[in-house]
């Protein structure tokens, strides 16, 4: 019986770790850009996560929130954005401003 206690404690602790979102490892998400559009942006973003912008278009694009971030993404190239701030960040392609999206970053 005494031997089973440490095991139970370990299992409980492991469950706590899994169920605590703050302890979750940062995720990497991909946003595809194709045919002059930003693809779906993940809804459950957290500070520390990473967005990989995958430009599958034949045109150069950008992911830009003026004064916050501004990434040029060449045709057929990828660019990486690490989310270091919490908040709502509307972004556009600065070259084609009709291309829009929003990043909502939780703590």
């Amino acid at each position: 019986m005494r031997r089973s206690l440490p095991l139970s404690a370990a299992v409980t602790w492991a469950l706590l770790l899994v169920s605590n979102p703050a302890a979750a490892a940062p995720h990497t998400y991909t946003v595809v850009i194709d045919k002059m559009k930003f693809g779906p942006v993940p809804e459950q973003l957290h500070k520390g996560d990473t967005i990989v912008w995958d430009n599958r278009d034949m045109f150069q694009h950008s992911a830009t929130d003026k004064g916050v971030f501004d990434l040029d993404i060449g045709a057929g190239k990828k660019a990486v954005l690490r989310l270091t701030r919490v908040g709502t960040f509307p972004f556009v392609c600065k070259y084609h401003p009709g291309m829009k999206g929003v990043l909502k970053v939780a703590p």
Partner: protein
Amino acid sequence: MTRILPKIFIASLIAAAAPAVAAGAPNDAQIAHIAYTAGNIDIAAAKQALAKSHNAAVRSFANEMVRDHTAVNDKALALVKKLHVTPEDNPTSQALSKGAAAELKKLSSLKDGAFDKAYVNNEVAYHKTVNGALKDTLIPSARNAELKSLLQTGLTLFQEHQAHAEQLAAKLK
């Protein structure tokens, strides 16, 4: 003067397209030629702007035109090669080239702010005309699915260019 330009361009495009329409809709070889010509015209206009303008926003727009239209034209060339289609000259392409040559000549005599305004206003008018032709004639007439898809992407791109040019024109007023 600049307000008249769209009408002139539209009139010449429609007039030039009439014989082709009378003989049936343009074929894919003619459509490819028109699209390629339209792109080249805008690249030439942008290169003129880069040689003459000192306005950072105008130069940035012109660089974007060179980059985007070159990308579409490269793709179009690769596609016609793949499809074994030889782009075919036609009255619409000729009318576009003629109108563009006149515009380049007119803009060459302008300087500084006057040039910037005339260039950007013409970009608005030109993209509006080409977008109308793409939407109403070229895309519906295209038979090859890949060509149609490329034209549709081109239309989305050129609509963005038109919006960008309109924003720029409003700032230059």
